[in-house]
């Protein structure tokens, strides 16, 4: 029997709905606009103030992109590091977070180390030197290992593990489970919402890998889709200095193809990661622990 809704409930619902509508419009509209432009002809784009409904849909921009080997290859690279990178990141983050929830000798010291990196970074050059010294230059692992664990995610995940009742672990220990079994059989299954959320964060982070790829990979064949995308959608900001005048003129020779192609490239680079979300959403539901402990 449904609970009767009062007038004030309805008003609240209405206001919520309105706010969410506005919010989602603000977020969805840029995507819509980019999509519209990517399907329009360059001429129409040039001559329309704000293009919302292309008069004739053309696929030239997409054809151009699919004709270039680089884009397809780089999508492959990005998918690879996203999948592998997210798995590695989740594995490392969750094991470390789990270890830090146990009664561990020197736990506070390790936590301090984690928090320290939270505030202080080594800087670009020292990091590069470490990546170089460990022989990761020009290998995909240079995009996966250096940023594998985010201290923030680690700390939040640790908090999540701590919220799992200690009695469960004790029960498992009585049944003869060791730490590894507790981790795999109790903690992980109960932490699906957290794993899904952080998995998504890591995946989006890896999907957007750009700077590290340029820094650590000398072979353009290994670059990620964001690098190729940036090449297609060259940022066009003229600064009013004479030094940049030559630059601007020189750039024109390699002018990026019309804006429509840039928009199409953005769509193609964004869609895959958008598709991941619905599959993770079902794990966000909490409540799996209800009834696991008799209070």
């Amino acid at each position, binding site marked *: 029997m*449904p609970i009767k809704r009062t007038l004030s409930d309805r008003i609240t*619902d209405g206001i*919520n*709905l309105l706010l*969410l509508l506005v*919010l*989602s419009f603000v*977020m*969805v509209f840029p*995507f819509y606009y980019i999509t519209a432009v990517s399907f329009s002809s*360059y*001429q129409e784009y*040039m*001559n329309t103030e704000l293009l919302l409904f292309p008069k004739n849909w053309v696929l030239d921009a997409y054809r151009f992109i699919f004709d270039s080997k680089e884009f397809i290859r780089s999508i492959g690279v990005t998918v690879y590091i996203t999948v592998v990178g997210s798995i590695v990141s989740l594995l490392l983050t969750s094991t470390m977070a789990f270890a830090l929830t146990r009664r561990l000798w020197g736990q506070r010291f390790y936590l301090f180390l984690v928090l320290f990196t939270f505030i202080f*970074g080594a*800087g*670009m*050059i*020292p990091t*590069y*030197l470490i990546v*170089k010294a460990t022989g990761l230059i020009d290998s995909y692992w240079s995009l996966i290992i250096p*940023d594998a664990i985010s201290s923030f995610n680690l700390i939040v995940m640790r908090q999540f593990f701590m919220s799992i009742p200690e009695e469960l672990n004790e029960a498992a220990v009585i049944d003869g489970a060791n730490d590894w079994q507790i981790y795999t059989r109790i903690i992980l299954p109960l932490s699906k919402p957290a794993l899904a959320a952080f998995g998504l*964060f890591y995946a*989006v*982070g890896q999907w*957007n*890998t*750009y*700077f590290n790829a*340029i*820094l650590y990979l000398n*072979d*353009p*064949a290994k670059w990620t889709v964001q*690098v*190729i995308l*940036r*090449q297609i959608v*060259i*940022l*066009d*900001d*003229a*600064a*009013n200095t*004479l030094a940049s*005048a*030559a*630059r*601007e*003129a*020189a*750039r*024109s*020779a*390699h002018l990026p193809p019309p804006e429509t192609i840039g928009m199409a490239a953005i769509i193609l680079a964004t869609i895959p990661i*958008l598709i991941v*979300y619905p599959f993770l*959403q079902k794990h966000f539901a909490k409540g799996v622990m209800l009834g696991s402990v008799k209070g």
Partner: protein
Amino acid sequence: MKTKKLATLLAAVSIMTGLTGCGGSNDNNNKPANTAEQTDSSNTPATNAAENEPAATNQQPAAEEKKNFEISTIQGTWASPLPDPNGNGAKMINEKFNVDLKTQFVPYDEYANKLPVVMAAGDLPDLIGMEGVDANFVKWAKQGAFLPLNDYIDKYDAIKSIPKNVWDAVTVDGKIYAIPNYFPSKYGKKPIIRQDWLNNLGLSMPTTYDELKKVAIAFAKNDPDKNGKNDTLGLGLAKSIVYGAWMGAEWDSGWYNKNENGQLIPGNISEGFKKQVTLLNDLYKEGAISKDWAVTKSADVRKDFFAGKIGIFYEQPYDISETRFKTLKETNPTAELAVIPPFAQDDGQQGFMGLPGYYELHSLNAKLADDPEKIDRILEMINYFMTFIPVDQRNDQNPEYDWQYGGVGKGYNMENGVALGIDGAFSEMPTTYFGIRYWAPTDEDTQPAMVLQDPFTKGFVQSAVDMLKTTKTYLDPVNRIHSDLLYAKVSELDQVVAEHTTKMIVGQESINDWDKMVQEYLKSGGQEIIDQVNQLLNDNGIAGEWK
């Protein structure tokens, strides 16, 4: 209940678009380049060559008279897609010069971040490309990262032909540290106007700021495109006052004007620039420039110009893409473009501010010093790619051109007697791998209109070139010296000036406060910059000159 479902869906949609929209990347080492500078000051270019193994390991049979060298390079590029390091063009170079070329290209977007890192890590290749002379170039040159080239260049005809004012730009403490790449100083951005609009309104080409003001206002108010709608603007202006309305060197932002002590001063605090700001303020009041120009990107303003909504904008007659021009002509069949000739200045001169005369440069690694043969091989290649081929000989009949561009049908096609590069065939062309341009004897020799196909674009470029042929160009002397104060401080100061002048144009600040702004500039370090720049100019006997 339905509303609840809808709300959940909306929330989900918002979250996912928001999430992907913001590049929440976990790159916490994506710091600005200045952190790199702090760290690498203690880190002089390392001297252990990581990759430079002597080429003796892959000795050719004795029949080869030339020794084989492995030559590594790193350089930035705008090209998309990037050239493939193992492409056909690279192989052709390897055969012709008996080298083993290891190239590395980095998108210019991030090259400024990557190069200092490579430098600090001691991985510097044999040949290093840079976009221009900046504080880093001077610092590295002083630290001994690059090879001084003074003793080598006289052997090479093309390299030798580089004029002194360009050599000065890459000379630090009397030593030449790089080989600059040719770029015409004449063919930078120039003010262009819709000649057909002038004709429609019965106006003549403006020759003074007063006339320019009248024309721009008429363009905004009198329906110059005769479409019966009030949808045009006089002049295209974008944020940070790009490009403005500089109709000659006196009103431009380069160093042309002098203060009362006879010192050269930067353009943006000069009386000439004040005149430009006054004009823009008048145009803003009259509605001849866009109301929200101060927050508009230059790319958007350009889009409006080529959509036929703006009467005066800026374009260069060199290295342009025909797409935009074609679009303009297709949608506005009557469109005619012309360059506005420079206005006569108060000092009797007349002409535009020129570009530095080069764009991009290549330095050699200092570690090559004890391998003169290898130095010669590299310079021989650079010289070869720099040797000018007249425009009318750039076709399949010329064996050198044909080789440099990868052969007809592979790297380029002949159309109407003109060689046109095949899209995306960079990797087929040997010339790609060094990124060297022909050094033209004069700017006119580049004949930029020759290679264009679209008649409208060709016509515009040809008319611009013809007009500029008889127009003087001012060479800014500051391009030829290296003032560390200028490198360190000027962009910050310029930003403050840009903010003030922006406010003056939109009327939030009075133009009467101009002198106050100049004083502020001078007090916050501007005067020291001016003193140092003028000191350097005097010491080196360099002055601004008209070409």
